[in-house]
């Protein structure tokens, strides 16, 4: 079975606005893939239907079955990670291999304090 992992350079995964989001993607696929795509995404959860925003993405073509790549996304100013009574907004790095079932995601937070804003 294909495995993919994402390692953020920041161990506490708590970023402040403007701070670059960097890390590495490792994969070990069981079939050849044409590309590996890494996306920087915010998404909502909670009572409302999910909204998703793809802020940035990086793509590597004709990747080997096993490999590792570094990604470096410029810092984002918002939206902050927050948790309310109805809505929660979170950030994640998503890596997907095409074709195949290779997938990984890693969540992190973005706010002036690094922690999720609670309202």
């Amino acid at each position: 079975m294909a495995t993919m992992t994402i390692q953020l350079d920041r161990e506490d995964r708590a970023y402040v606005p403007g701070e670059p989001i960097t890390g590495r993607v490792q994969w070990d696929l069981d079939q050849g893939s044409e590309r590996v795509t890494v996306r920087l995404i915010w998404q909502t959860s909670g009572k409302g239907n999910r909204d998703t925003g793809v802020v940035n993405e990086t793509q590597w073509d004709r990747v080997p079955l096993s490999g590792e790549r570094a990604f470096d996304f410029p810092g984002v100013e918002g939206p902050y990670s927050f948790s309310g009574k109805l809505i929660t907004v979170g950030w994640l790095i998503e890596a997907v291999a095409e074709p195949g079932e290779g997938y990984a995601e890693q969540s992190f937070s973005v706010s002036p304090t690094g922690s999720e804003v609670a309202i």
Partner: protein
Amino acid sequence: MTSVMGIKIQLGSRRNTSGKPASILGKLMTTVFLSAFVAAGVFFSTMVFDNAGKAIDQQAWVEHPATIVSSGIDIDASSNEPYIPRVEYTYTHGGSDYTNSTTTTSNPATRNYREAQAYTLDYPPGGQATVYVNPDQPSESVLKIETIASLGSVAFGVLFLSLFSGIPLAIIIGTWWPRNRAKSQQGKRAHAARNRGKDKLGGIVIGVLFGGVFAVAGVGMLIFMTILPLWRTAIAQTWNQVPCVVERSELLRFEGDDGPTYRIDILYTYDFAGQTYGSNRYSFASIGSSSGHKGKQKVLNQYSVGHQTACYVDPGDPTNAVLERGLTLANLWGLFPIPFAAIGLFVIYFSLFGKDKTGNNWKPGGEKQKRQAVSEYAIGDSEDGPVTLDPTASRRKSFIGMLFFALVWNGIVGTINFFFWKDAAGDWDLMPAIFLGIFQLIGLILIGVAIRKLLVMFAPHVVLELSRQAIPLGGSADLRWRIPGTPGRVTKVTIKLIGEESATYKRGTDTVTDTETFYVQVLVGSEDGGSVPEYRSPGRVMDSGDEILAIPLETMHSFEAEHNKILWKLEVKADVPRWPDPKDTYPLTVLPMPIGGAS
């Protein structure tokens, strides 16, 4: 996934917004819904192909000269299509003489006298004509065969079947077609990630398809029931007025699932340019039949058999005539297709040009960012200059909207009530009367609401001015408020800063939006409604003030996605004695904190 008239249509193999595949129930609902379109398309196309098939067979029939023996119009008083053209002719084929009276293979009986009259005018007794004889059975012949029209109808049938049935059928097949389903949770998430944003095209196709059906039907009915009658009414103002005599005056009854409907049939004859013509057109209102017979009977009483009156004749085509060339109450039916056409066109427009559904735009009111693939944030937005805030809802637009709705509602319900009670004439049913009464009561309430909104329009308006348009978290702006005009009417002003969550979701077939207030700060006035001395003093009311609008630091900025929002606003309420108290809401944009700290 797309939404049509509140109903969300989810394709079986598509993902919903949470990334989960459609359920069996969803697939079944999709299949049942679309199957109706497939069945309707096949049914209508079968009729078209069947008629076209018969007509195409006739292309092999042989032309022969014929002599018209007699022609006229028979009237079948027991039928709702009473006018039957009768043309008798003789011809020779293979040395044998034949006499026949078949005009076409389809039933020539019609409820339109003008159509029947066309045969008698085209085939006068003693005249010559061309008939088409079946070479396999020479006694079978017709005066008219379908040619280009039949081939055209085949083409129409193919096109109709392809669009109306083919597309829904393809969607049904795609819904149930087995796919390489990911066995693991990881695979499912990989599949969702790969399809991110790709279901937009499917939603557009579905929206255009459904909107197109409503739009085509609505526009078609609009042309037939509204535009054409109005056009004909206008043209008829130039027609000649000639004396005519009523030959037949009948009330035709049609049985339907919801009860009988009625149509008047008044046949009148007139002379024009030395020839006698007939017509049974009463007015230009294009409705087949309708319920309510008392009003129609009253019209028939005016035009009894033998009655001499005036009709209006088209001098360019004397077979084209009408009794009432102006607008009648029946023309009101022309309003009926407007909602269908409007809904269809709205759905098409919204499907093609609606909001960016990928949720990339989270900044409130950012039109320029809506088409960008990557959301952006410009710190410079917070440095915009002073601005007068606009309320979320304009009082005038709110009043006009409610007035329009109340007028349409009361117009339709009032008209139905009018005809109901007019036709009832003391003999009415309780249930329909109660039903109509409830609708009329709602109409009166709508009028009351419209009147209230009118009064609110003339209530004092609190004008808000901010020193800058967007305020970052931890930042502040100068807020100036004033009451122009006659401030003495206002005894109290309350201004609150409110932060609110808004989440939209589906509950069954309804779209529901829940809100939750997470921040309230009273800037002007008091929370408990009591008077605040500095804003209210005997004999004098403050008509302006200045405040500092400070946004707290440790809270959430404005956020606006398709379904989820964080909204900041100023809520302003003014107490006006002996008048509806106006309450207006002014949206605010609160930005994330600038990098480097609050400003």
